[in-house]
């Protein structure tokens, strides 16, 4: 593998300082995207700055059910979210469906959200649950955070510390997953709040997106909309038209699991 230095900071400030002084540096959380990317030389960092020693794991709830926020530390693994996010069962269920058991023992919430893979599961929950992405220097609203394929509002050296998910009245996630990679070919997360519905779609387009037509239809109790295929992805796994169709199917499945 491409050679790099491995740095183990003990504080956020040490981590950002190491990142700034190490040429082309990369933060490593669980490493389940980064290490494969380094193996294939898609990434060739000079240094990896390990975020595991900063105390960024854990789950705490603020406020009651149907209100408040569930705060999850950035280094919390998918397995721990699946087991511990009982205040938002749809989020626990989403985490339990990422990758496989071994991957869930290692992959992290913060790593997934910072990477913003267009087919990742977590961005759909972050967006639909109107989450706050807290970092070492700022708090980002979910609606401003995701900026298309692998792009986010994070500055180069910025570190996600924890994510606060709004606790909904009810929510569900339905995913049509690729059978080998287990990534979402299409995933739809629906959440109902006192103020209305939020619907987020992952896997279908170049990045996670809000499906506002569906939100309006759900609020009005009207017929569910069709997803236009114009801006959706086409690849060897699924055409844009098929992904558009799957958006409707996954929306119905998610709504059915609420009932």
């Amino acid at each position, binding site marked *: 593998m491409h050679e*790099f230095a491995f740095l183990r900071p003990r504080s956020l400030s040490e981590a950002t300082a190491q990142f700034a002084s190490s040429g082309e540096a990369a933060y490593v959380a669980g490493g389940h995207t980064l290490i*494969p990317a380094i193996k294939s030389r898609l990434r060739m960092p000079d240094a990896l700055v390990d975020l595991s020693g900063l105390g960024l794991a854990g789950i705490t709830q603020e406020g009651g059910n149907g209100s408040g926020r569930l705060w999850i530390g950035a280094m919390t693994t998918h397995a721990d979210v699946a087991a511990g996010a009982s205040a938002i069962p749809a989020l626990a269920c989403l985490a339990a469906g990422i990758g496989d058991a071994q*991957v869930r023992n290692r992959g992290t919430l913060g790593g997934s959200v910072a990477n913003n893979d267009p087919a990742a599961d977590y961005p759909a929950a972050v967006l639909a649950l109107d989450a706050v992405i807290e970092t070492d220097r700022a708090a980002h609203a979910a609606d401003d955070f995701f900026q298309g394929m692998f792009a986010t509002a994070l500055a180069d050296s910025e570190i996600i510390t924890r994510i606060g998910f709004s606790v909904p009245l009810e929510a569900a996630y339905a995913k049509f997953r690729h059978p080998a990679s287990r990534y979402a070919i299409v995933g739809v997360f629906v959440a109902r709040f006192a103020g209305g519905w939020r619907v987020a779609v992952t896997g279908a387009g170049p990045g996670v997106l809000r499906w506002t037509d569906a939100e309006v239809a759900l609020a009005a109790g009207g017929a569910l909309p069709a997803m236009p295929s114009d801006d959706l992805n086409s690849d060897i796994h699924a055409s844009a038209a098929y992904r558009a169709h799957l958006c409707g199917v996954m929306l119905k499945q998610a709504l059915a699991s609420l009932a």
Partner: protein
Amino acid sequence: MQMTLTINGQAHSVEAPAASLLVEVLRDVLGLTGTHIGCDTSQCGACNVLLDGRALKACTLLAAQAQVAAITTIEGLGTPERLHPMQAAFRDAHGLQCGFCTPGMVMAGLEIVRKHGTQLTPELVANELEGNLCRCTGYVNIIKAIVAGAAGMETADA
């Protein structure tokens, strides 16, 4: 880089490049070749080891990242004379054909017991095994072996 790894209860001081994968250090530096490299892309689970009791794919973990944890490999479970109950169950149920995936399957079996206890159903094992590939046996005897091995662990504990 200099690193200290705790493997099967023993501390090892290792000099290896920072970019070394855990599975490479286990096999090439320490000679623990029971942990296999199958796909090298975190699909197949032949490289499963336990890190603080949790199963992980050692092809997608740097050895440097594993320094803070207790690592258990297949060599740490039993001996040829005194097999771990999960290993014995794979032999008894003929839960293998070529045997290449077996160390990873045994470690996955231990992970399933950790999460679900010793009374398992074949359906649950089949679902939980999705991160382990076998290209020989079609899984039927592997699942039987894990169900039996889990029950055997309860007896061994008693």
